[in-house]
């Protein structure tokens, strides 16, 4: 993106509607009841994009909320990740699911390779280290 957004650009849907669109490029003004009835608007068009999440991250950071911004940036990396993959990674991050550190490192590598999810990968690698130190790779029957 070329310009930096400020909190004055918020809410984007009112102040900068041209910046946001559904995942297939449908603009907010194209998302209408007529569109839904004619079959032109589908669930895909009602999903957030990684771009919109990065815009929101920028606004959050400008608003003094860096941790919220980071969450939006991690989320931006998950937009293209299918639900079942998300749920399997989530499951793996729960206590005692991964048998050892390698499983988590593998999941991190997969996300990085398949979806370019570098922030998330680093986040999971961090978890892998802490889990090892805190003995979380214990099978919980």
């Amino acid at each position, binding site marked *: 993106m070329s310009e930096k957004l400020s*909190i004055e650009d*918020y*809410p*984007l*849907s*009112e102040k900068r*509607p041209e910046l*946001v*669109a*559904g995942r297939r490029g449908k603009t*907010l003004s194209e*998302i*209408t*009841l007529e569109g*839904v*009835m004619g079959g032109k*608007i*589908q*669930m895909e068009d*009602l*999903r*957030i994009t990684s771009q*919109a*999440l990065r*815009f*929101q991250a920028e*606004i*959050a950071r400008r*608003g*003094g*909320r860096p*941790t*919220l*911004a*980071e*969450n*939006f940036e*991690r*989320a*931006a*990396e*998950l937009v293209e*990740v299918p*639900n079942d993959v*998300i*749920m399997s*990674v*989530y499951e793996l*991050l*729960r*206590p005692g699911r991964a048998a050892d550190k390698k499983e988590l490192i593998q999941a991190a590598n997969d996300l990085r390779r398949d979806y370019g999810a570098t922030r*998330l990968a680093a*986040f*999971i690698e*961090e*978890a892998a280290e*802490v*889990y090892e130190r*805190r003995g*979380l790779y214990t099978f919980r029957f």
Partner: protein
Amino acid sequence: MNIGSNRWRRYGDWDNRPLRLDKFAAEDPKNGFAAFSSPADPKPSINIENGRVTMLDGVAEADFDMIDYFIARHHIDTSIAETAMAIPSATIASRLVDMHVPRAELVSIAHGLTPAKLADVLSKLNALEIAFAYSKMRARNTPGNQGHVTNAKDDPLQLAADAATAVAFGFDEIETTMRVSRNAWSNAVACAVGAAVGRWGTLFQCSSEEAEELRIGMAGFSSYAETVSVYGTERTFIDGDDTPWSKAFLAAAYASRGIKMRCTSGAGSELLMGFHESKSLLYLEARCLCLQRGMGVQGTQNGGIDGAPITATVPGGVKELMAENLLAVWLDLECASGNDARTTESEIRVGAKILPYLIAGSDLICSGFGTILKYDNSFNPSLLNGEELEDFLVLQRDFEADGGLTPVEEYKVIELRRRAVEALAAVFEELQLGSPTRKMLESVVAASGSDDTRSYTPRDASLISQMIQERGITVVDVIQALVRRGFRVEAENLLAVVKLRVSGDYLQTSAIVRNGKVISAINDPNSYAGPGSGYRVADGRRREINAIRDQLDQKEVLRSEALHEGAERRRIHYETLGAAVVSDDRLEVVVGISPAFGIKLFQTVGGHPLSEVLGVITDSIVARGLKARVVRFGHTADTSFLGLSAARLAGSGIGIGLQAKGTAVIHQRDRLPHNNLELFSNAPITSVEHYRELGANAAAYALGEMPEPVIVPMRGQAMGSRYHARVAMIYAIETAYTKAGARPEEVAVKFLGRAS
């Protein structure tokens, strides 16, 4: 000597009050029962080396547990931590309640403080200071509220009707859950449709198993989630089957689907789950909240939540719940401030619990006001429920405080409920999920709770839920079904909520939708800086809040009096004879009536026709062989002076003062105005028989006897709250008829239709 009992019976009375159903726990820090501090809480401390936290509250980096680690790496602002930690706790506490210290400055300090330090600062504040600081520190200016919409049968029709009702009362968010977990999809569709009736903008959550909740969100039915729980000790976290990383991952997952999310924490969960490490409730919650901010969630639902009831058993526990809400907003998180799980059976404790939040305002005052009846609340009863919703509306009006809700006229509610069940029935028919009968719909429309309905059973809901899930029905299918059946407005409303996720504006801190626009901490930040600043109830909003049902005004009083006028005209006739004079007939009692008696006012506040009251009084005087002379006074409407003036005219020196509203007095000529013989001040509970005895006693006094005074038994009714508004309006009608110096007039009273 045996005095018959070894117990003061008052204890027996107390035993029978609802309060005694509450159990109270002794303070016992070792076993986790301590609100604000415990010997096991660490002393606040921090070490930072090269921008890296190497020691947190006495724990060295190598010994960090998962929570310490996450807070150290993802939450603590190392650029300010050393400066912030060096400020004495009492100084920071003072700044929190100093209206001249800006919120932003305090937020910045908070991000440099360790959990132990945060808890230490808040332990310096009393309850009033906590409430005030909360009002100053909460993130969004405009207060809001959230409600539960559930029922004991998981009946989708009732969910739709109740969702529409909750929306009408103004809830910004509604949350459902199920009695039978597999009914999640049916609940979701029903609430989504119901919430689209009337207006758009109420966000909706379907609280269910994590993966399923996310799928329901993906299908477009729900728009926020808040059941992502975090805990303050590592062992509890693990028993909760999560870690800070798994929950943070889930937080990102929700955002990636454009769904608003907050975490849940709150005092008492570690205590209930058995791994409290002997730490105080506030310290553990401070860890939870630092963690949540580190995870990058926009907000929290805290203030005990499921742990609120146990927290309220501890000394200072309810104050602790307020303190942890303050902690959330001080850290700049949206706060859905608890006030959900019912902490007590005592209505006094309920009212006391909610008041600070109501007057301070909160992003979401309740994180689950029970919009339905208690027995229909599948989350368990809330602090406030459908039963008490009007009490809350009145509290808003009492304190001129915006609790996020708005009174709704009766006829509108029934219309919305009908519309909601018809819309859902149409969707079910269009999508071949069912075809509810007219009888089912009608039973739900009028039902206060599921006891009254003849509708879907939990098993029916399971079958519907399964079909929705298996056929992959999405919100787009539902919108199309609504339009095909003529529910175009509802379809537009539903689409508008789903469309929110495209821009993600409502993912920012403290976002809700008001009047079709997203407002949040970014475009509606808390601007409190002293009197006249911050959120104020504007004139228009004040009118909405004031519009509770059944308000009385003088027009209404006159209208109800006029209803009785005709009947009274057929029963009694007052003929003015001219100026009343002092009599020397010792066998005479004067009954002094008030200026508007029988002219503008026709019945007592107790509902007795004035003809009947005056009739029994004069009859019982006559029955003792005395004469009852009726005199109308125009110079006063006051009971005492009516009585005294009557006594001064009476040959016996005994007079009765009788106001149209029914208040009466027996007076004697040479007494001071307020030193009467007998006073009948509680007109609402004064019966015709009492008035008869009044007349008899007045006659007895006139005959020089000493009768037993008439006692009108009062059983502790709040007479003022029940009657004073009406009484004041009636009395104003009387006083408007008074005229300084007006001479008393003799009145010949004729009781029509009587034999004599």
